[in-house]
C-alpha cells in the first residue's frame, strides 16, 4: 500500500518538475521581445510654474482600483506627477472604489474639507455628483474626466471637463492591425474578402463608437476590403463577458480582435486562440507575448500638471481640455513581437501626420453612412439630456471630433461595421 503511494507521489513530482523545466526552457529559447516605439518627438511638455505650497493638496476619485486598466491609467499618472513634482503622500489623496453614486459626492466633499484644492474624478457617472460638490465649494477646482456638462454650465466656473483625442491613438493602433491583416492576406493565410476584424465594446456610447470607428478607419486605410463585427458587454469591467465575447467573435471568423473594456478577458482569449490583439489602456505584452500588437492609452499626467499649474498660479482652467499627441496625452505603447514588417516606420509616419493635422481620422471622403458620403451632421455636443444633435460637426471635409467639447460625440455607424448587438 505504502509503496504504491510513494511511487504515485514520485511520478507526480517528476511530471511537475519536467513540466516546469519544459516551460522554463520554452521561455529561454523563444523569448519574444517588444519593438521599442519612442515617444513622439514633438511633445510640448506641460510645466508647473512657480513654487507649489506645502499646503497644496490634490485628490483623485476612482471608480475601481489598479486592477482595472482604466483606473490604473489615472492612478499611475497621478503617482508619476507626485514623484515629478516632489509632492508628499499627504498631498496626494487617491480614493479608489467610489461608485457612480452619492458616495462620489461624499468623497468629493470629504476631500474638499480635508483641504484639497484640486479634485479629479475619473468615471463618466461621477459627473453630476462632482457638479453638486462644485456648487458647495466654489474655491476648489473640480475636474471631471470624460464628462460632457462643463461647457454648458457656465455658472460653475470651478467645474471643468477633460478628455484626450484618443481616437487618433486608436487610428494608429488600427493602422498596426491593418498591416498585420495585410500580412495575413499576403502570406495566403486568409483571402482579402475574409478580412474581418472583431471589436468588443463596453456600451454603445459615443465614447466607444468613436473609438471603434477610428480604429476601424485605421485598419481600412491599409486593407480597404476589411469589415468589422462589434459586440458589447454592457459593463466596463467584466472579465468573463469580455472573454466570451472574444471567443464568440473568433469563432464567427474574426481574424484580429480589439477591445474597449477594462479587463484582461479579451486579450487572454486571443492569446489562447493565437489571434492577434490590439489592446487599450496599456500594454498586455507580458501576459500575451504571442498575440499582442500595440495599445493606445491616455496619459493623464499632462492634464494633472495643467490643473496644478492653474491652481497654483491663479489661472482659470479651460472648460474643456483636450489632450493630444502633441501634449503627450495620447500615447502608444511599444509594439508586440508579432507585428508585420515595416510597422514601426509606418506608425511613426502616421503619428506625425496626425499631430501635424495633415491627416484627419474622420475624413468624410474615407467613409460612408448608408452608402453615402456625409456632408452634414448635427452632433449632440450640448448634453441637455435630450439626445438631440444641435451642433454642426462636419466642415472642411472632416468630422470635428472632440473640438466643440472634450468628450467624444461621434456616434454614427459607418458602412463596413456590423453591430451584432447594442448595450446601453
Amino acid at each position, binding site marked *: *500500500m505504502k509503496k504504491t503511494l510513494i511511487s504515485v507521489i514520485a511520478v507526480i513530482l517528476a511530471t511537475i518538475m519536467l513540466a516546469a523545466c519544459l516551460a522554463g526552457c520554452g521561455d529561454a529559447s523563444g523569448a519574444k521581445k517588444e519593438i521599442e516605439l519612442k515617444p513622439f518627438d514633438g511633445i510640448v511638455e506641460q510645466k508647473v510654474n512657480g513654487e507649489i505650497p506645502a499646503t497644496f493638496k490634490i485628490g483623485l476619485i476612482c471608480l475601481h*482600483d489598479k486592477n482595472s486598466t482604466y483606473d490604473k491609467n489615472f*492612478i499611475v499618472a497621478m503617482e508619476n506627477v507626485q514623484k515629478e513634482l516632489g509632492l508628499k503622500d499627504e498631498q496626494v*489623496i487617491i480614493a479608489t*472604489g467610489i461608485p*457612480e*453614486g452619492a458616495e462620489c459626492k461624499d468623497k468629493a466633499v470629504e476631500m474638499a*474639507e480635508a483641504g484639497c484644492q484640486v479634485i479629479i474624478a475619473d468615471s463618466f*457617472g461621477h459627473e453630476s455628483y462632482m457638479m453638486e460638490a462644485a456648487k458647495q465649494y466654489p474655491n476648489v477646482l473640480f475636474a471631471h474626466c470624460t464628462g460632457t456638462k462643463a461647457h454648458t454650465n457656465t455658472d460653475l466656473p470651478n467645474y471643468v471637463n477633460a478628455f484626450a483625442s484618443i481616437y487618433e491613438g486608436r487610428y494608429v493602433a488600427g493602422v498596426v492591425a491593418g498591416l498585420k491583416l495585410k500580412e495575413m492576406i499576403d502570406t495566403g493565410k486568409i483571402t482579402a474578402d475574409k478580412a474581418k476584424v472583431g471589436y468588443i465594446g463596453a456600451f454603445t456610447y459615443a465614447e466607444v463608437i468613436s473609438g471603434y470607428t477610428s480604429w476601424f478607419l485605421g485598419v481600412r486605410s491599409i486593407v480597404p476590403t476589411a469589415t468589422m463585427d462589434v459586440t458589447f458587454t454592457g459593463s466596463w469591467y467584466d472579465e468573463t463577458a469580455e472573454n466570451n465575447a472574444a471567443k464568440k467573435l473568433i469563432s464567427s471568423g474574426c481574424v484580429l480582435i480589439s477591445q474597449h473594456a477594462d479587463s484582461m478577458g479579451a486579450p487572454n482569449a486571443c492569446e489562447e486562440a493565437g489571434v492577434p490583439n490590439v489592446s487599450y489602456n496599456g500594454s498586455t505584452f507580458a501576459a500575451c507575448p504571442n498575440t499582442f500588437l500595440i495599445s493606445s492609452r491616455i496619459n493623464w499626467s499632462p492634464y494633472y500638471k495643467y490643473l496644478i499649474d492653474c491652481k497654483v498660479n491663479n489661472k482659470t482652467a479651460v472648460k474643456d481640455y483636450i489632450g493630444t499627441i502633441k501634449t503627450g496625452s495620447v500615447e502608444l505603447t511599444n509594439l508586440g513581437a508579432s507585428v508585420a514588417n515595416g510597422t514601426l516606420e509606418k506608425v511613426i509616419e502616421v503619428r506625425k501626420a496626425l499631430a501635424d493635422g495633415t491627416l484627419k481620422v474622420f475624413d468624410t471622403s474615407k467613409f460612408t453612412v448608408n452608402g453615402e458620403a456625409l456632408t452634414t451632421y448635427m452632433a449632440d455636443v450640448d448634453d441637455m439630456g435630450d439626445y438631440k444633435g444641435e451642433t454642426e460637426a462636419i466642415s472642411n471635409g472632416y468630422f470635428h471630433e472632440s473640438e466643440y467639447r472634450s468628450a467624444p460625440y461621434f456616434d454614427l455607424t459607418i458602412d463596413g461595421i456590423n453591430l451584432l448587438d447594442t448595450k*446601453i
Partner: protein
Amino acid sequence: MDNNSKHVREPLVHLTRRLNVSARFAWLIRIGAFVLSILVCCLVSCLLSGKVSFGFFFKHLFEGAFGSGMLVRALLRDLSILLLLALAVTPCFEMRYWNIGGEGQAMMGAFGCALIVSYTSGKMPVWGTIVLSFVTALVMAVIWAVIPALFKAKWNTNETLLTLMFNYIAICLGAYLIKKVVPMGTGILNFDSGTLSSLGSGDFWIIVSAAVVMTVVMFVYQKYSKHGYEISVVGEAPNTARYVGINTKRVVVRTLFLCGLISGLVGFLLVSVKDASFLSDSTMQSTVAGRGFTAVLISWLAHFHPLAMVLTSFLVVFITRGATQVGNMARLGNSYAGMMVGIFFFFIIATEFFINFKIHFRPKAEKKPHETAPTEPEQKPVARDPE
C-alpha cells in the same frame, strides 16, 4: 487506509455545550475578540504593505471614522441605515424564519420610491410626490416581504432560498425601471426634485432620528408586546405555539409585513433622503449596496437584541470606514477594506463558537465512559437577556 485499530478511542478533542453562560462573560469575550481582531488587522496590514506601520494604521483608522464632524455624521448615517435594516430582519430571525431578503425588500422600497419620483416629479406638488413615494416604497417592500411568507405559511416552502432569489429579482426589476426611464443614460437615476433632500439639508437628522425611533419601538415591541411574545414562542417552540392557540401562519405573515414596512422605510430613506438617486446594477452596485446582507450578520451577532445591534452595526461601520481610509492613504486598492471587515467577522463569529461550546481535550491515559456528544447544533438564543 489500514483500519486495523478498531477499538473505540475517545477523540482527541470534543465539544460540549456551555449551558449557563453569563451575559457578562459573553460580552467580555466579544469585546476581547473585537480588540484582538483589530490588532490582527493591523498586523496583517503591516506585514503585507511596507507603507503601513502600527501608528499609521491606527491614526488613519480613527481619522477615517472620526476625523472630522462630517465624517462622524457620515458614520452615524451609515450606522443608522444598517441598523434599520437589521431591525427589519430581526423579528423574522427571532421567529426562526430565515429571511435573508432584506436586501431585496429594501431594494423594492427604493424601487417604489424611484418609480413615483421619476413619473410624478414636476407633475404634482413636491409634497404630494414625497408622500406618494413614501407610501409606494412601503407597499412595494411589504409585497416583496410577504410573498415568501405566504409561500411559507401555505406550502411550507424554504424561505431562505426564496427570499435570497427575491433579492436578485428586485435588482433586475430596478435595472428595468432605470432603462425604462432613461434608455440612454449611465444606468443611474438622479433626482433633482421630488425628493426630501431637494427641500433642504436635514437628511442626516431624518435618517438618524428614524433609526433611534425604530430601535426603541422594536425594543418595546419585542420585549413587552403580545406580538413580540408570540414571535418568540413561534420561534423557540412551534408546538407550544400550536397548543396555546397561536395562529402560526398569521404570525409569520404579520411579522414579515412589519419587516417589509421597515425595509421600505430604508428604501425610501436611501432614495429620497440620502442619495437622491437610484442605482440597480448588481448587488454591490445598487442603492442598497449589499447592506441587506450585512444586516443579517449584524442582527445575528447581536443575538437579535435591538440595543446590542446599535453596538454591532457601529463596529461594522467603524471598521469599514476606518479601513477604507487606511487603504486609500496607503494606496492598497479596494479589496483592502473588505479584507479587514472579513478578519473582523471571522473573529466575532469564532467568538460565538467559543461562547457556546467548551473544548475538552482527551485526558492522558484515562478511560472515561463515552459522553453523548451534543449532536444538535441548533442555536439557542443565549443572550436574549444581557441585562
